[in-house]
């Protein structure tokens, strides 16, 4: 579903990604694990078209991305951002936010689909005309997930979707993402620094460090705390004793 071949990205003099390659199968949940500066978010930005200055080969579903060119990807891939406060327009109601993608693509039955989506992400229908500041962090993140799913894309990019949330709310959002994935057969590419979240959510993972993939592993290896690379082991150690 997602294919990344020899992806390199440079910002001026510094190279932030050194020919990174990986594949994600349909319906799979793949984690990019790393600390800040590892380049994990840059991969998402390249896949979502926010960064177009890259070399290599990128493909999502049937769409081949070209460097220097913003592809029309809305129905193929959508993203859930880390900060539920910055990712919603402060003056637009939930209804505005959720019907916007439908309006852009001229799709019918907006009212019905907005209500159905509110149900799907577990938001009460009476919230429909609320503004973001009337919602809690967890509720906002549900709106962000709903917005990402309005056009039924097969792929979701998740950029640390729960790291800004309280732990009890994190559990609700992770459960929701997992249910939606099973229901709709979604493919997830999750960026995170949180190992336990990967254990819960993902099937496979890649560990990134300074723009290179250190190790690719099955989640079973992570759960058994048996990653092969030294850096992987170090991450496990810190996660348990940090």
């Amino acid at each position: 579903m997602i294919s990344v071949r020899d992806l390199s990205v440079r910002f001026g003099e510094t190279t932030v990604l050194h020919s990174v390659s990986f594949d994600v199968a349909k319906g799979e949940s793949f984690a990019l694990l790393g600390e800040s500066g590892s380049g994990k978010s840059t991969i998402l930005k390249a896949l979502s078209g926010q960064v177009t200055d890259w070399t290599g080969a990128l493909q999502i579903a049937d769409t081949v991305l070209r460097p220097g060119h913003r592809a029309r990807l809305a129905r193929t891939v959508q993203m859930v951002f880390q900060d539920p406060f910055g990712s919603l327009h402060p003056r637009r109601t939930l209804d505005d936010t959720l019907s916007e993608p439908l309006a852009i693509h001229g799709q019918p039955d907006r009212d019905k689909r907005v209500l159905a989506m509110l149900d799907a992400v577990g938001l009460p229908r009476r919230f429909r005309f609320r503004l973001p500041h009337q919602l809690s962090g967890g509720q906002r993140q549900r709106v962000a997930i709903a917005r990402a799913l309005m056009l039924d894309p097969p792929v979701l990019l998740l950029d640390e979707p729960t790291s800004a949330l309280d732990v009890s709310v994190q559990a609700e959002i992770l459960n929701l993402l997992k249910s939606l994935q099973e229901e709709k057969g979604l493919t997830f590419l999750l960026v995170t620094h949180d190992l336990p979240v990967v254990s819960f959510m993902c099937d496979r993972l890649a560990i990134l460090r300074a723009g290179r993939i250190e190790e690719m592993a099955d989640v079973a290896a992570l759960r058994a705390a048996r990653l092969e690379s030294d850096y992987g082991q170090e991450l496990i150690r810190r996660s348990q004793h940090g």
Partner: protein
Amino acid sequence: MTLLSVENLRVTFPSDHGPVEVVRGLSFTLGRERLGIVGESGSGKSMTGRAVMGLVAPPGRVTADRLEFEGRDLRSLPEREFRALRGPRMSMVLQDPRYSLNPVIRIGAQIEEALAVHGNLTAKDRRTRMLDALNAVRIDDPERVARLYPHEVSGGMGQRVMIAMMVVLEPALMIADEPTSALDVSVRGQVLDILDDLVKRRGMGLMLISHDLNMVARWCDRILVMYRGEVVEELGAGALHQAQHPYTRGLIASLPRLDETRDRLPVLDRSLL
């Protein structure tokens, strides 16, 4: 020895629907130890720290039956004397160093300026103590770092500079509000080690305020778990698994684990609390 004792602390804010209590009758004492205060957003944990520092801005109101620091009653302390306490005797480290450092003054100069409250130091003494402080927070080449501007250092380094700025005055009490949540895991350990060192070697009292249950549990001598402005549970070091209160237990259960095999995470049922 008791450094800080707090009894029945309440912080109230007015709202459209009448006064709202964000901290509701909190009591604890702090010696020369590491006290962790954990809670989720809105639990009142940060407001507790600010109340002790006398930093609750109006229209917020702080009341307590007892609020004593080093034997002095903080409740009736005039603002001028309180200001003399903040810095030399008690200080606070916040989450994001970028907002706490002055962007246009070199790091060394900022730390030396913090020393100015001591007054009677020569410029040479100040410089020596500034470099010592940077050394104490494990900055290898303090000479170089002292010449940098805040934007030229990483988040972890910035946080260490912040701590150095606090430490240079050798306060008796430090309140650290989410000191590591803006940092990478690898840097987190270092910052905590530095704080630990200060408690052990200089006999400082530390209040560590955080949302990270595991981190606080691993690292503090005692933990207070706060929920809706009240302490629901007090736990000893490493005794997280003995937690009794349904809120604490719910929180622990809802955290994913490294060897996670559950298909769904249990969600905290707030109606039971």
